[in-house]
């Protein structure tokens, strides 16, 4: 994607950011007129061939050209800060109809933006009372309403996540760009990786992952309905749709029933072989159906085999279903030493999950060459999670206008949390060799924590720092 240059081609997706900060999603279909409401309209043909992320102005009806800067993104709301201003509804002397007329002139090209703003400014009774800075801001704010300019954003995780959050935060489970970014980083997402993904955010997370690796990866997506809800994927463009990703072999999908009960599921889709002669004898539509069902079965079998093989490089989990009820199915599929990354809009959900995972153990068969022997022998082993952390990640934005640096006055309250851990394998014989039984005993005798410190250091076998009381509780559970 990136190496092709950032040129808008026919039918490409474009996010139009308006002077009002609202963002609209369009496709650059040739010979189309895009109407931006009060901000005017333009022909897509004049957008095709331009670079993404440039600023454009509608300089003649339906025609656009590149302009160099348009800094409304850095402007604060003057009314919040301009202490000189005594608020009153009557400040704007220019009547509504006159403004509409002026805007009409603007659309037909008979008036330049700056002139309009000058006229509006002259008609404001409070304008002259303002500082020159406030005046500049006033002009710029009015500009937001009247300038016929826009910004043509390239689809990317940050733009798409913000767009979705504005439209329907519940649909994307309040996922913010910073949270998605941290999930991808903590999951060690990299080109060529193999990931197990549960994503009920309309595939906002999946699309972001695919963008990060430029579709060079293998993802197994587990979804709770017959088909995954993939409504966000198209926002990245045609090469990111579920179909395109599957064709590209970067995506496989299974529903939960396929994942939990593969054998029965597979049996039901099994198609009895027909010998070549019988096949030739079939009607064409029956031939087609037979081949289709054969292919469906083969694909399902292959997907199930991929899932059965497990050993995924990471688990990324965004779901309405409580992780406590699903992780027992998913964790065995994660490779050893690999990250487990679970998102929830609610801290409480992850606290419960963390407590449940402290005592998570999954017995596995593990063969190892023992000291003094030559042949590998089976040893009792169980998989666990190490280093459970709950992350809260927020990006605080600042205004950086000259002389006016401060954090933005308001920010959206969407905020989720991430639980991270690493999957490891423990052994009963190592637990036995450690001080585990001794500690257990001590805990029962309720000896003080201080006393512990003077004894020979022996390591504790679980994930939390040795001297927290919680650890002891966890050990008791693990036992």
């Amino acid at each position, binding site marked *: 994607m990136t190496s092709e240059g950032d040129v808008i081609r026919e039918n490409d997706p474009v996010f139009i950011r308006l002077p009002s900060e609202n963002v609209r999603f369009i496709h650059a279909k040739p010979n189309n007129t895009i109407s931006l409401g009060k901000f005017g309209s333009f022909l897509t043909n004049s957008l095709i061939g331009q670079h993404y992320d440039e600023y454009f102005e509608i300089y003649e009806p339906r025609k656009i050209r590149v*302009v160099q800067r348009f800094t409304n993104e850095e402007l604060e709301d003057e009314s919040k800060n301009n202490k000189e201003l005594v608020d009153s509804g009557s400040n704007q002397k220019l009547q509504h109809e006159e403004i509409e007329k002026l805007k009409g002139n603007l659309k037909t090209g008979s008036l330049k933006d700056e002139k309009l703003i000058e006229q509006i400014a002259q008609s404001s009774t409070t304008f002259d009372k303002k500082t020159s800075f406030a005046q500049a801001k006033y002009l710029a704010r009015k500009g937001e309403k009247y300038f016929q300019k826009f910004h043509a954003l390239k689809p990317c995780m940050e733009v798409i996540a913000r767009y979705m959050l504005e439209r329907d935060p519940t649909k994307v489970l309040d996922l913010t760009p910073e949270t998605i970014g941290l999930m991808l980083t903590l999951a060690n997402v990299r080109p060529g990786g193999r990931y197990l993904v549960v994503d009920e955010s309309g595939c906002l997370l999946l699309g972001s992952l695919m963008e*990060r690796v430029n579709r060079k990866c293998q993802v197994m997506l587990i979804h709770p309905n017959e088909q995954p809800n993939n409504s966000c994927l198209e926002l990245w463009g045609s090469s990111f749709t579920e179909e395109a990703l599957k064709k590209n072999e970067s995506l496989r999908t299974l529903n939960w029933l396929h994942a939990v009960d593969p054998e029965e599921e597979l049996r039901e889709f099994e198609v009895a072989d027909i010998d070549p002669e019988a096949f030739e004898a079939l009607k064409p539509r029956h031939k087609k159906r037979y081949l289709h069902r054969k292919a469906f079965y083969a694909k399902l079998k292959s997907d199930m085999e991929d899932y059965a093989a497990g050993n995924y490089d990471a688990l990324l989990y965004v779901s309405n279903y409580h992780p406590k009820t699903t992780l027992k199915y998913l964790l065995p599929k994660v490779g050893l030493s690999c990250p487990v990354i679970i998102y929830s809009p609610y801290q409480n959900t992850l606290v419960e999950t963390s407590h449940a995972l402290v005592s998570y153990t999954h017995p596995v068969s593990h063969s190892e060459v023992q000291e003094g022997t030559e042949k590998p022998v089976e040893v009792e082993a169980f998989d666990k999670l190490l280093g459970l952390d709950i992350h809260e990640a*927020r990006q605080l934005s600042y205004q950086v206008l000259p002389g006016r*640096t401060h954090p933005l006055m308001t920010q959206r309250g969407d905020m989720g949390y991430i639980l991270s851990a690493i999957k490891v394998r423990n*052994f009963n014989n190592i637990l036995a060799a*450690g001080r585990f039984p001794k500690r257990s005993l001590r805990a029962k005798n*309720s000896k003080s924590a201080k006393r512990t410190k003077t004894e020979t250091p022996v390591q504790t076998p679980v994930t939390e720092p040795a001297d927290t*009381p919680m650890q002891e509780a966890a050990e008791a559970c693990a036992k």
Partner: protein
Amino acid sequence: MFSQTQKQFIEEGDLAIVWLGKGKLTPIVLNSTETLHNQFGAYPHSELIGKRYGQQIASSSKQGFIYLLHPTPELWTLALPHRTQIVYTPDVSAIVQKLRIVEGSRVIEAGTGSGSMTHALSRTIGPTGKLYTFEYHETRYQTALKEFTDHKMMEDVGGNTVLTHRDVCKQGFVLKESSPEDIHSVFLDLPAPWEAIEHLGPCLRKNGGTRICCFSPCMEQVQRTVQSLRENKWTEIQMIRLDHKLWMARKTRDMDIEEALDRLRFVKRKRLDGLERRRQRQLQENNTADDDSSETQTTVVEEPRAPSPTLPATNKRIREGDEAYNWINVCKLESEVKSHTSYLLFALHLPSANEQNTAEVVSAEKESD
């Protein structure tokens, strides 16, 4: 390349991250003649080799254990030897996100520093990407060169990274190849990023935007850098600061006030019994003196001295999660929160910025001057 393959078994020569305890990580390069020591015991490398990544490995004495983990940039950041202040994972994540660094990106980093960011960038851009990293400090350059070569990140050992010893603030950027202008993203972790910004011109893309992040701890650095970015026709100037908190799941006692009431009743009863006993004793004394008491009132049964097991003393230390009590699942912050690393200043340079025939600049600042 670092973290490129997910080996299952530990081999001679591998770089691994040793997990000694929560937050206690150290890197190791496996060499069968060496032995790792820590407070819980010794681990001859020869006994580590052949084990699985992520499995628990006991020390020779069986007194302790470790895990050897796959090296990832995130674990490396926790384990690496600090040569300078490092870029931590939450910042790394925000920078990669907002610079839109993806597979195949071509990226400039200056300075290299302790290499924490370098590892993350190299991982993310993958084999088809290219990372140019600059370090002006001689010793740090040499250390980084060895480290990146060991980690198979350098171009000449099959990686995607080019490390250059150069002071970009004074000498500018030189990219060893034919298309120097094709840089997607720039990360500047320098004391005076504004000195480097003016040298970036030749590296900026002509067929799309170039994004920059300047990483500065102090507000005054940000203010000066903003000025330089404006002068050099960068746009979409945005400044953020990360608020990253690490929470731990804990349990706290679910205490019902009825417990306190029971305890108070118990204590009161004991006190009243004590008063009664004293009264009885006084009566007895009086009896002895005045000889007019009845014997029946002295048969007070002594209360046992030990507190009832259902009424724990308030100061008793109770183990978190003790099954004799009710608990609530709660969450606590780590006791010391990293509240600030640096301000992250982002900007975008567009192909139109250097063209003369585009429309005039419209900007609020211009009008406010």
